[in-house]
Every structure is written in C-alpha cells, then in structure tokens.
C-alpha cells in the first residue's frame, strides 16, 4: 500500500503539482498529538512545582486542615536553618550521597565496565546482566534480600557464612552499621547505570588505539589511566552529575530498609515523612514543602547545568518532513 502511494504521488508531481507548496495536514494537528502529553506534564510536573513553592509559604498542616491555614511568609524556610535536626539530616545526606557515588555509582560502575570488557564477550555480558538484576527487581523484594543478607546470626547470610566461621562477633548489620547498609543497598542498584554507559563508551574507543597501547607494552593499569579514562571523560561527568542528583532526591530504598531509623533519615526522606507519610499521621505540609522545595531548587539547578554543559540543546534536530 505504501509503495503504491509513493508511485501515485510522484505521478501527481509530474502533472504539475508542487508538493512543497501544498499544506501538509491541518494547521492544528500538532495539538491533537501533543495534547495528552502537555496536559499530563502540566498537571503532574508544572502544577506540583508551583504548589511546592506556594504551600511552603503557609502554615498548612493536619492541625489547620485545608481551610484554616494562613500565610506565614518565609517562616518555613527560616525554620529549615534553625531546626535542631537539620544538621543531622544534612550530615547523613552528604555521607550517603558522597560514598555511594564515589564507591559505587561511579567507582564500581567504572570497574565493572572495564573488567567486563576485558573478559570474553559472553562472560562480560552475563556479568552485566547480573548487575542489572537489582535495578529491575521490585524494590521491596530487593530490600528484603538485603535485610536477610545482613541479618544477625543464626539467620543472616553474611554473618553465617563469613563472620561467625572467622570468629568475628556477629550483629544485626543494619542496626550496627546503618550508614554502610544504606550505601551498600543503594550502591548495588546504582552501579548498573554507570556500568552500561561506560561499557558502551569503552566499546566505542577505537580498536586501533587499544591495540597500539598493547603493542607499546602498556599494562592494563596504564591503559586505564592513559587511554580509557581520557576517552570517556564526558560519560564520566554525565554519570557523576546525573547520579548525584538521583541520590540527593531518592529515598525509596532507605525508607523500606530502615524508614529513617538509626540516624539514616536523609533529607528527601525527612521531607516525605513531614509532608506525606508518617507513623503518627501528623503532617506539616507547609514545612514539608519547604524541605522538598530545597530539593526542587537543587534539581532545577542541575537540569540547567545539563542543558549548558552537556549541550543537550544541540541534540534537538529540526523536523525532517517539514523542512523538505
């Protein structure tokens, strides 16, 4: 059918039609196609961003309800700086983001990518598939697995398999080392993102360059330092910034693992607890929105940086059909 249409149209033009001048479709067609997406983006992205900032200037909470609230200016925002717990939340957020990022989301990701491209192809693929499993596993199942891995003897796998036979003291590891626990749990999911991006970057380094380094007698460490790292510096920067933002704002895994116990309530989880979900059902929407507002501001700043530094706007092409 398609082919016929082409033939017919070319016949048309030989009879003097000029296809370029003929208006293609209806002027408002784009609205039909863009409509649903625009509505959803407006309702679930733009409106919430506006709501965050509006409500952060009110004292709205479960005490005031939705009708008895009043404007309180910058009080919520000032409260963030004077709140006795702010320091603790900032501390755990910084530790969590920094170490997960360095050791796992970038460090381990790079290691996995380099190593899995230096072993036979099938084996490398199998390892990468294994590392994707945490990402596709339903998060509750994944956390359940970790809770059991780190449980105390006689149940926990790490304790039973490694610590007890070697004569170390056993413990409930999540309670004993809560920071390590949240870093491990997030890191094992996070590593796969960088792993995949780095892998495709390494595989696109030209064979000639890799072989040349071998002929010159470079060992694998020298090759990593002088060839691989310089060649993939853009993906490295992209993964680092992208994952920093993801880590600052993600709390799902921590919520299921500890729900903020043992001093692991990161900033985003604090906001979530204050504003949407807590044990007592006491919501401070105004204050919670201010806490979330800080994250929104950080996110917007990161997004602007992407547009600027990674030249995302260069990737926007002109539509093909209209320009011809």
């Amino acid at each position, binding site marked *: 059918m*398609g082919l016929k249409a*082409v033939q*017919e*149209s070319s016949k048309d033009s030989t009879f003097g039609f000029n*296809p370029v001048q003929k208006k293609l479709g209806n002027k408002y067609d*784009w609205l039909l*196609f*863009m409509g649903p*997406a*625009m509505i*959803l*983006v407006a309702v*679930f*992205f733009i409106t*919430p961003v506006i709501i*965050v900032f509006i*409500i952060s200037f009110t004292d709205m909470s479960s005490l005031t309800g939705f009708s008895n609230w009043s404007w309180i200016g910058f009080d919520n925002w000032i409260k963030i700086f004077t709140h006795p717990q702010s320091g603790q939340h900032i501390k755990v957020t910084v530790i969590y983001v920094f170490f997960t990022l360095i050791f796992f989301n970038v460090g381990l990701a790079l*290691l*996995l990518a380099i190593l899995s491209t230096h*072993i036979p192809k099938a*084996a490398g693929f199998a*390892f990468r598939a294994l590392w*994707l499993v945490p*990402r*596709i596993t339903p998060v*509750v*199942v994944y956390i*359940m*697995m970790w*809770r059991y*891995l780190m449980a105390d003897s*006689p*149940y926990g*796998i790490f304790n039973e398999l490694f610590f007890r036979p070697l004569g170390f003291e056993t413990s409930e590891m999540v309670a004993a080392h809560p920071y390590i626990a949240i870093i491990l749990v*997030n890191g*094992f999911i*996070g590593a796969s*993102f960088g792993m995949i991006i780095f892998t*495709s970057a390494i595989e696109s380094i030209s064979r000639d360059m890799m072989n040349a380094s*071998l*002929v010159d007698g470079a060992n694998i460490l020298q090759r990593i330092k002088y060839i691989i790292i310089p060649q993939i510096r853009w993906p490295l920067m992209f993964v680092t910034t992208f994952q920093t*933002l*993801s880590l*600052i704002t*993600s709390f799902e*895994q921590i919520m299921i693992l500890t729900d903020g116990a043992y001093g692991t309530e990161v900033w985003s989880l604090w*906001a*979530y607890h204050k504003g949407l979900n807590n044990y007592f059902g006491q919501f401070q929407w105004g204050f919670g929105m201010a806490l*979330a507002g800080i994250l*929104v501001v950080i*996110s917007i700043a*990161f*997004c602007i940086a992407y*547009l600027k530094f990674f030249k995302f*706007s260069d*990737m926007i092409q*002109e*539509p*093909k*059909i209209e320009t011809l």
Partner: protein
Amino acid sequence: MIVNSKIRTFPWGKVIPFAILLIFSIPLILGIYWVVISTFSVSTRGLIPVDSAGNPGGLTLANWSFLKDPEVWKLTWNTFVLATTLTLGVLLVSSMAGYALARINFKGRKSFLGSTMVLQAFPATTLLIATYFVLRFISGVPLISIFGYDTLGGVILVSISTQLPLGIWLMKGFFDVIPWDLERAALIDGCSRWRTFRQILLPQIRPGIAALSIFSFITGWSSFLIPYSFMTNQDTAVISTYINRLMQETAPVNYSLVSAVGLFQLIPVILFFIFTQKYLLAIFAGGMKGGS
C-alpha cells in the same frame, strides 16, 4: 598482529578481571540464591534450609500456600491492571507526542523538546507531596474523580507522567530515523495526520514500541513508592505494598513467606528480562531514569 598478552602462557589478563568481578558479585549471587532456597524452606540459617527445630532439612511447599488465598490473586490482578494500563498509556501518549516532535513543525516545539529532555533528569520523587494535593483536588471534581487520591486511576496517571519524559524521547528517536517519503506521499494524497500516524508510521517503529512496552510493564509491575504514597487506605492494593506490609509487621517476620511472595512478583520480571535483554539494554543505554 602479535600482541603481548598472547605470548604469555597463563591468561592472567583474563582470569584476574573475572575473579574481581566474581568477588564483587558475591552479595548478589548469594542473595538471589537465598530468595529461591528460602521459599521452599521452613526457615533458613544462612543459606542452609532448616526445619522448625533448627536442624538441616525442612524443605516444604507451605510457603507457597499463599497462592490459594484469593486476596493475593486480587492483588496480582490489581498489579497487572496497573502495569498494563501504565504501559498502554505511556505508549499512546508518548508515541503521539514523539511523532509530533519528530515530524510536525509547530510553535513551542523546541522548548517542549528541551523540557522533555530536562524532565528526564528531574526527580519526580521531590514532587510527591505536592502531587498529593493535585490528586486531592482531582478527587473533588465530578467525572474525573476516578483519577483522584486513593484510586488506582490516580496512581496510573501519576505513574504515566513520571514515565513520559523517557517515553517521548525514546519514541521521537525512533520516528527520527524513519524515512519520510512514505508519510509525505500519504499526506499529499490527502490522508489525515492521524491516519498517517496510525497506519503508516506506527507499524514502522515496532522495535521501539516493544522496548518501551517491556520497560513500562516492568516499571509498573514493580512500582512501590507511588502506590504506597497514594493508596494509603488500601495498604493491600498491589503486590509491592503487600510485601512491604508483611515485612514491617512487628511480630518476627516470616522471611520464607515474604520471599515466596517476592519471588512470585519477581518471576515475570526475570522472564521478561531473559527474553528481552537486548531491547532493555538499548533503553538503559539510551536514557535511563535512575532510582539511585
């Protein structure tokens, strides 16, 4: 070509990377192994199945008796409905928008494309509290209140929105590489945009549709945070929230039961993954929205 490593007798260059990879993968391998083993055990000590007295043995199918519980099948149905409607919604909305962005020149096209790209990086979780207010508002409006707070409809709409930036970007990419001749001919012949889209272009991007479907289905099937946040009164709404409730119980957690339900939820995902790795890797490499 003579390469150094080929002269050596023992391939250390291959064995050492392999060994390091294996060591780092130990927690994953042990964890996955345990999930499978424990579902068939009364209890486990480390990786060893034991009976109720703590002696090795104690293999049982009792943990799977939850499959006889009609409640679980209701949850499974809910989860399935969430995953399939999410998939259909994401496909429909993002293929339409992707088409317009790839093929139609309209005012605001560039800025929408730019914002789509930026929204991919924008963490939707920061907006959850505010989304709660949006859903509360929708609840109060007649006709659309089925998409409000505490409804499956609301959860589906919010989930579709969070998937949209990736979906639109992906679909646009697939439309971009289709030659425009066919479509142009159809349009010149007076075929409407909608018909051109549906009958000529959609069949051309089948791989893209497949990839996005798989990805969306897995996302919907596994999703936790959005159902958990916006269906608080029905804690049992989907399998994820059900497992979470089992795990948070104050009484000693029956890990064998929890992992059986967990494995039940994981099986479709793993099957999908095994048969469609290539599609999925393409998506992950193309533009992935990371939880962490």
